[in-house]
C-alpha cells in the first residue's frame, strides 16, 4: 500500500509541499533559462504537479531496495536509473506542454525558449526525485519502527495473557474437589490423617497463590511446590505414585518462571498415574550445563486409557509461557514413546533472572 497515495490528507500535504519546489523551478526558469515571468509560471506549476505524481512511483523502487538489506551499488544504481528515467519522462512531457502552450497567442514564444530549459529540467528533475527517495526512506523507517513497537506490544500482551491463564489454571478445581472428598472420607476413619491432609492442602494452596505474583523463583522453591502437590496426591493415590528425582545440585539456585514444573507433574498424575491400576513412576531430571537449564518430566502412562480430552491445557500453557518469555531461546518437547510420556524443557540458565 502506498503510504501517500492511499491517504487523502497525506496526498494533500504532499502536493502542498511541492508548491515551493514549483516556485523554485519557476524562478530558475526565469533567472537561469531566461524565460519570461508569465511563461515560466504556466510551465513550472503544471510541470511540478505532474512530477509530484511521477515521484510517487519512487516509493516502489525504495520498497524494492531497502537500505538495510541492499548493497550500496544496488541502491545507487537503482535510484540513479530511476532519477534519470523520471527526469527523461518529465522533459518529454514538458516539451509537449510547451509545444501545446505555444499554439496559443499569449504564450507563442514559449516553445522557442524551451531549449535552454532542458538542462535545468534534468538537474531539478534528478534533484526532486532524490528528495522524494529520501522522503520515502524516512516514511518507511517510521512505519517499520511503528510496526516493531506494535509487535513488541502484542508480544508483551500475549505474554501477560499466557501468564494470567497460567495463574487462573494454577489450581485445578478437580484436584481440589477430589482432595476435599478424601478429607471428607478421612474425617471419620482417620481424623489425624484428615487433619494432616487439610494442612498439606493448605500448604499447597498458599504456595501456589503466593507464587502467582512473582516473575521468577528459584528452582528450589518450585521443587518444594511440586513436593507439596505430591504430598496431597499421595493421600489420594497412596502407593500408586512413585516419584523419582535426579536433581543437579548446581541447578537449585537458578531462577525459573513459577509454576513451570508443577503443572507438568500434575499432568503426569492426571493423565498418567491416574489411569494405571497399579500406579507407576514419575521421574524428574534437572541439569544445568553450558548456560542451559534442562528440565525433564517423564512418566508411565496407559496408551490404551479411555479417551479423554487430549491432555494438555497444562502443556500448551507451559509452552506458550516459555515462548512468550524466552522466544526461541527456550526449548519445549513433549512426546509419547510407548508407555512413557516425556516432556523436556530447556531454558537459559541465568542467575539474575529476568528484570520485569
Amino acid at each position: 500500500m502506498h503510504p501517500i497515495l492511499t491517504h487523502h490528507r497525506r496526498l494533500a500535504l504532499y502536493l502542498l509541499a511541492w508548491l515551493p519546489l514549483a516556485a523554485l523551478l519557476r524562478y530558475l526558469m526565469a533567472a537561469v533559462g531566461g524565460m519570461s515571468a508569465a511563461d515560466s509560471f504556466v510551465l513550472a506549476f503544471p510541470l511540478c504537479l505532474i512530477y509530484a505524481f511521477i515521484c510517487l512511483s519512487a516509493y516502489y523502487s525504495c520498497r524494492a531496495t531497502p537500505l538495510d538489506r541492499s548493497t550500496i551499488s544496488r541502491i545507487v544504481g537503482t535510484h540513479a536509473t530511476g532519477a534519470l528515467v523520471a527526469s527523461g519522462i518529465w522533459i518529454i512531457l514538458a516539451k509537449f506542454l510547451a509545444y501545446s502552450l505555444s499554439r496559443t497567442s499569449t504564450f507563442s514564444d514559449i516553445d522557442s525558449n524551451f531549449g535552454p530549459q532542458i538542462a535545468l529540467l534534468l538537474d531539478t528533475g534528478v534533484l526532486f526525485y532524490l528528495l522524494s527517495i529520501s522522503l520515502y526512506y524516512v516514511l518507511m523507517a517510521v512505519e517499520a519502527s511503528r510496526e516493531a513497537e506494535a509487535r513488541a506490544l502484542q508480544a508483551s500482551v500475549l505474554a501477560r495473557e499466557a501468564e494470567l491463564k497460567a495463574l487462573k489454571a494454577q489450581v485445578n478445581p478437580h484436584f481440589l474437589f477430589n482432595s476435599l472428598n478424601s478429607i471428607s472420607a478421612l474425617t471419620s476413619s482417620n481424623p489425624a490423617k484428615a487433619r494432616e491432609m487439610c494442612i498439606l492442602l493448605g500448604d499447597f494452596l498458599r504456595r501456589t497463590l503466593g507464587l502467582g505474583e512473582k516473575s521468577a523463583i528459584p528452582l528450589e522453591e518450585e521443587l518444594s511446590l511440586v513436593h507439596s502437590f505430591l504430598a496431597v496426591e499421595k493421600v489420594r493415590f497412596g502407593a500408586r505414585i512413585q516419584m523419582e528425582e535426579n536433581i543437579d545440585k548446581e541447578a537449585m539456585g537458578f531462577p525459573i518462571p513459577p509454576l513451570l514444573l508443577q503443572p507438568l507433574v500434575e499432568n503426569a498424575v492426571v493423565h498418567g498415574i491416574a489411569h494405571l491400576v497399579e500406579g507407576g513412576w514419575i521421574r524428574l531430571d534437572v541439569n544445568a550445563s553450558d548456560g542451559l537449564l534442562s528440565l525433564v518430566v517423564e512418566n508411565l502412562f496407559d496408551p490404551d486409557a479411555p479417551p479423554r480430552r487430549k491432555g494438555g491445557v497444562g502443556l500448551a500453557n507451559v509452552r506458550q509461557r516459555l515462548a512468550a518469555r524466552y522466544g526461541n531461546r527456550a526449548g519445549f518437547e513433549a512426546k509419547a514413546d510407548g508407555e512413557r510420556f516425556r516432556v523436556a524443557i530447556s531454558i537459559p540458565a541465568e542467575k539474575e533472572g529476568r528484570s520485569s
Partner: protein
Amino acid sequence: MSAQRTIRAIIVDDEELARQILCEYLAAHADIEVVAGCANGFEAVKSITEQKPDLVFLDIQMPKLDGFEVLELVGPGTEVVFVTAYDNYAIRAFEVHAVDYLLKPVSAARFEAALERARERLSGKLPHQPLPAAELAAAARPPSQHVERIPVRDGTRVFIIPVAKLDYAEAQDDYVALVSEGKKHLKQQTISSLEAGLDPSRFMRIHRSYIVNLERVARLEPYGKDSHIAVLTNAAQLPVSKSGYARLRAFLDR
C-alpha cells in the same frame, strides 16, 4: 421402609478413600448390602456381570474404562448413580438414565436423596425404561467425536479394540461381529449405531450388513452377474451392495 427387600450395591472408584466414604454412608442403611468395591473399569465390568447388583455407584474417570464405557458393556439392567468430581458429564449421565449424578465431595444429605431416588426406581414407583444398547453406546461416546476405541465384553472379560485395528464389522441379528487381528468379537449393538460412531473418512458401510475399514480394502472384484465383492488385505472377502459399490468405487478412484 423396613419391609423393603435388600438392595445389592457395587461401588466403583479408583480411589480407596472415595470408595470408603460411600461405604460409610451406605453402612447406615440396613437394607443395602455392598457386594463389591472395584478400582477400575475392567474390575467393574467383571463384578457387575457376575454379581448383577441392583445399584452401582460409578466414578467416571478411571483406569482402563471410563464409567460410560462400563455402562455400555454391562448393558441395561442396573441402576446407576454417578459419583465424580467433574460436573461436565451430567448431561450424558442423564442420557443414559442415571438415577442421579453426585459431585465430590459428596454430602450426606445429597447422598441420601440419591439413595431415595434409587429406592423409588427399584421399587417401581419411578418409571424406568432400560435404554437399548445402541443408545448406551452412543451416549458413551463424547459428543461430536468419533470413537477411537471399541470396548467389547466376552463374559466377564473385556477387550479394547482400537478402531485402527478393526478390519471390518458384520451385522448378526442384534449383534455386530467385530473382526480385528484375526479374531472375531461379538458385541450387542446395531451396525447402524456402530457406523454412527465411526469416522466416515476411515470406515464405510459397503453393505446392509458390513462396515469396512477403508485402509484394509485391497481391491474390488466382480462377483456373479452384477454384484461385487471387496477383497481385503488379509484376503477376507466382503459382499458389496449396489450403492456401497458406487461409494467404494468413488473412494478407490480418488
